[in-house]
């Protein structure tokens, strides 16, 4: 077994140092070492999108990064979205529009939706489906997920306009 090394990660605005082996992927370190189990692991090889997190504000697959690689970057997980006890508008929209069934894909969907709206603040339903095609829902509840993202878009555009 390889020796563990000390890794300092900035997660949700907080620096945290943990011991981990270089082969430990970011998702495992978030879940098992830092206790942030909101990031879900589905396929563990970059296909399903469940483990999506933001790295320096851009969505990435946390199953395709070694934790040791992201030192010096800012990681945002689903746990880091609420502010002062207020859910993020995307989280609220998923609740309001019933964008989740079993909830397993939801953290990845929410972060992917946030990333999409940053690049395209007012997408069409077709654009949401196309852009979020990398996130898989096995309950196949896509209709409500698309409605949630569109709902969040109009909510967020109202706030900024």
């Amino acid at each position, binding site marked *: 077994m*390889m020796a563990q090394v000390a890794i300092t990660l900035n997660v949700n605005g907080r620096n945290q140092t943990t011991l981990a082996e270089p082969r430990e992927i970011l998702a495992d370190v978030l879940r098992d070492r830092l206790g942030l189990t909101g990031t879900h692991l589905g396929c*563990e090889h*970059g296909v399903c999108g469940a483990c999506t997190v933001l790295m320096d504000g851009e969505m990435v697959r946390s*199953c*395709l990064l*070694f934790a040791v690689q992201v030192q010096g970057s800012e990681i945002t997980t689903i746990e880091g979205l609420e502010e002062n006890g207020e859910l993020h508008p995307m989280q609220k929209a998923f609740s309001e529009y019933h964008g989740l069934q079993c909830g397993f894909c939801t953290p990845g969907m929410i972060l992917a939706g946030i990333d999409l709206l940053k690049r395209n603040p007012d997408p069409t339903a077709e654009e949401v489906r*196309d852009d979020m095609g990398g996130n898989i829902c096995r309950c196949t509840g896509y209709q409500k997920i698309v409605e949630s993202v569109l709902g969040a878009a109009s909510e967020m555009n109202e706030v900024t306009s």
Partner: protein
Amino acid sequence: MKPAAFEYHAPESVDDAVGLLSSHEDAKVLAGGQSLVPMMSFRLARPATIVDINGISDLDYIQCSDGVVQIGATARQSALEESCEVAACAPLLAEATGHVGHRAIRNRGTLAGSLAHNDPASEYPAVLMALGASVTAVSSGGSRVLSVEDLVSGHFLSTALGPDEMITEVSVPAQSGGHGFAEFARRHGDFAVAGVAAVVNMNGSGVASASIAAFGGTSPARLDEAESALVGSDGGSDAVAEAAARAASQFPATDDIHGSADYRRALIDVLTRQALQQAIAGAQEV
């Protein structure tokens, strides 16, 4: 924790990186990791040493000078997608990038890494062959330039690179004429079952030059028999159909879970026609 244990190095210069590659047996370069990490998680790859080049900041660039687009080894695919230089100088590359994986993959994945991995279903090796691109490969012994065609063709999940070499830059000559790109994938963002990239130049009498490459077979392939059928023709539908038929017969088709070799040849016929029609229409506008 699925990957086998490895020794991790994060050099800050190309010299240090190639030094590590030459002094360590079974070392592998880690760039975006979007192909290597899943292979390691399945233990299809279990390198003893990982040389993470993401900390080499002077490899992260996209620039266009003297009619050549130069793309550093750690430039992300999402940066290619948004680059004005790529859109202006190599629109085929810009268009094909939208078909590579999903946005989350492109935020980490690199062009050079995709070439070095050389998955036969990947868009980039064929696209860069059609564009006549080359790579700079560096080892502790020096550097060399080789064409993407020499780098990837005939190889399966491997390249002509030596174990102590790394790609530092991909150079794409500014595209002239029109381009076409067509692929068939079960879902947008999935690996394509097959695809075709083409660049065509027209003159007063018809097709002056054509460069056609395909992916989804045993190895990315330049389709020179289709090219010679097209060059000198009027670029009309008969000539395109003849070129597409030759493309299908020359394509190194293979059977797998996603489709039979016969199905792939039929796809290449259709996709070549679509790509050439787009390329010829584009070339006529120039």
